């Protein structure tokens, strides 16, 4: 009988081709996703006159640079048009399936992978994007890699890795109404820090995690990297299997039964050892917003901006001063009084159908006091939202209903927050300049962004949900 193993140990073992004496292991890659930003890796292939080893296991998605407002037929900016075209050329040259700009399956890569049934439990998945951790929500070992590693995967379908340490984050109990997966993620990062999980593979566990929908799990695993972990994983269960079944690329027929049998064993054994454990109580988590320039600068909405004068640690006080200066905030300001200039609902973190429903539940019959953009996570999410009438709710509230892409989360398609404007955003990074030079980002859940839209300031969504179906 084998020693008790963690879910992560099992995933790792299933992909290890070879291990060297120095501990570095060669891992098999089941799925590889590429996007416009992967052009550096394709250039490396060209320089080596190399071919793609397994074109059937790599899938391309146009998401980082695609326009998300107005017509997509013509891209005015020639540099951006070139980025989209280069992905088309590179995938065509190497026989890689592309969900391009005109494809109905197009969307943000971390939304599209699960949606198309390409992301499955038990797989090892990589992509040249740090939010690849998202796919761990289905019980896959998924992590972001750099361009040289992307080139290596293209050429060999493998990757050299050193096994990370194992961290279990357990969340027991029930979430209060109005509290979402994003709040869990921000609560964890606030607790352990933006480098709290560096060098670790996270497993999210506990009754509150098991109670999350697939969308919520994807949000939670997505934010693993903001705590420093390259990957976050959740053991697959009925929620996962129900989500995967019948999706276009998912196994079917006898293969489905074989898959289900294998996936059902993907859980941490009783008595398995983690290198570190963190426990949180779900009921303690309130709706959270960020106030600073790191996702760890997160506080419950009833809190106040920190005061550097009350900070005993000099380095920390200096950091607070700089963050507050960048964010244009006075020390001690109550979070719920901070006026915003615009909102953004989108990104691989929070633009799935459930996210749009949560925002629409708050916005229905109400008007946004500020302008804003809603960019669905995929073209399929967009169609579903329109079938459900959610687009009308957003439009009637005065918001722009856009197309799918990375959009204003990273701002490289031209959709940016203007300098010194304050944006309530469902995205993942409140870094300086992330949403555009000098942009001020406050991260929060979709429902909390909707609440900020309705009131024109950072707000607790819970009173706005009274008497409504959230």
């Amino acid at each position, binding site marked *: 009988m084998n020693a008790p193993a963690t879910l992560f140990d099992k995933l790792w073992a*299933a992909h290890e081709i*070879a291990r060297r004496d*120095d*501990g570095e292991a*060669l891992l*098999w890659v089941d*799925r590889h996703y590429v996007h416009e*930003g992967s*052009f*550096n890796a394709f*250039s490396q292939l060209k320089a*080596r006159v190399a071919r793609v080893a397994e074109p*059937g*296991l790599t899938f391309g998605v146009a998401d980082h*640079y695609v326009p998300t407002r107005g017509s997509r037929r013509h891209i005015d900016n020639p540099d951006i048009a*070139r980025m989209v075209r280069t992905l088309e050329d590179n995938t065509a040259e190497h026989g890689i399936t592309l969900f391009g700009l005109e494809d109905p399956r197009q969307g943000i890569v971390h939304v599209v992978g699960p949606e*198309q*049934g390409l992301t*499955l439990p*038990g797989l090892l998945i990589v992509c040249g*994007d*740090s939010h690849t951790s998202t796919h761990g929500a289905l019980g896959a070992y998924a992590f*972001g*890699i*750099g*361009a*040289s*590693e992307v080139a*290596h995967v293209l*050429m*060999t*379908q*493998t990757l*050299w890795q*050193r096994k*990370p340490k194992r961290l279990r984050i357990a969340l027991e109990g029930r979430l209060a109404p109005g509290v979402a997966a994003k709040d869990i993620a921000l609560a964890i990062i606030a607790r352990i820090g*933006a*480098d709290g999980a*560096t060098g670790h593979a996270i497993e999210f566990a506990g009754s509150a995690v098991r109670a999350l929908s697939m969308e919520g799990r994807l949000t939670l695993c997505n934010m693993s*990297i903001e705590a*420093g*972990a*390259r990957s976050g994983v959740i053991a697959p269960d009925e929620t996962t299997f129900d989500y995967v079944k019948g999706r*276009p*690329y998912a*196994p*079917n027929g006898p*293969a*489905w039964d*074989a898959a289900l049998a*294998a996936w059902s064993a993907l859980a941490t054994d009783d008595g398995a050892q983690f290198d570190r454990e963190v426990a949180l109580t779900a009921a303690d988590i309130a709706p959270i917003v960020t106030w600073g320039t790191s996702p760890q600068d997160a506080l419950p909405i009833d809190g106040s901006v920190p005061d550097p004068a009350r900070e005993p640690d000099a*380095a920390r006080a200096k950091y607070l001063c700089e963050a507050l200066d960048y964010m244009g905030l006075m020390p001690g300001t109550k979070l719920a009084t901070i006026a915003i200039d615009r909102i953004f609902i989108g990104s691989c973190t929070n633009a799935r159908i459930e996210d749009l429903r949560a925002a629409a539940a708050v916005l229905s019959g109400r008007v946004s006091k500020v302008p804003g953009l809603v960019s669905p996570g995929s073209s399929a999410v967009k169609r579903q939202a329109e079938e459900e009438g959610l687009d009308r709710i957003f439009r009637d509230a005065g918001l722009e209903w856009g197309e799918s892409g990375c959009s204003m989360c990273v*701002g490289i398609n031209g959709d940016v927050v203007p*300098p010194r404007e304050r944006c309530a955003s469902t995205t993942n*990074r409140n*870094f*300086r300049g*992330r949403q555009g*030079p*000098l942009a001020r980002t406050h991260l929060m859940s979709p429902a909390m962004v909707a609440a900020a839209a309705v009131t024109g300031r950072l707000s607790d969504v819970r009173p706005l949900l009274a008497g409504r179906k959230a």
Partner: protein
Amino acid sequence: MEKFTRLTARACPLDVANLNTDQLLPARFLKVPRAAGLGTALLRDLRFDAEGRERPDFPLNRPPWREARIIVGGRNFGCGSSREAAVYALYDYGIRCVIAPSFGDIFAGNAAQNGLLTAIVADDAAAALTRLLDETPDAPVTVDLEQQTIECRGETLRFSIDPVRRTRLLNGWDDVAMTESYMRDIAAFKTADLARRPWARPAEPR
């Protein structure tokens, strides 16, 4: 990839925790091909103001540190986005070594693929080195990867680095060359895995 064995150069302190890759290379420069060089875009929005003027108080703009080839950073240096171009920007600017208490995992991996040394030191060692450099900005710093030591003004401290990355940097190896000797293992794994996990391949789309 260029080898890294030993380097003596000026070192610039950048005492900022969580200096993420969006700061090292703002996203709008990600379209720039590597061949064009990314050194001018390094830390663009911290080095220059909105009008494109240099911020004179930013450390890398101060005379003794303009030619720095070593950066002494804060905790979690290079966290955030996986963009390898953040490493290209450092390298193209002339930086060959970053010393910090910790690094973003993806950044550290990318650095080792491109000849950039990420040297890990304790928090207080980074603070002490920063103090030394604040006192004597033009003091040369010697980083020795063989010995895993950093020397400045007669003081020597040790740094750590993943041993695999160390070997790779010392020899200038890249992963692709290393993997070539494993092609038979890969082929054998693939055959066995197809039988073991037939469901792991994408189905014909429905």
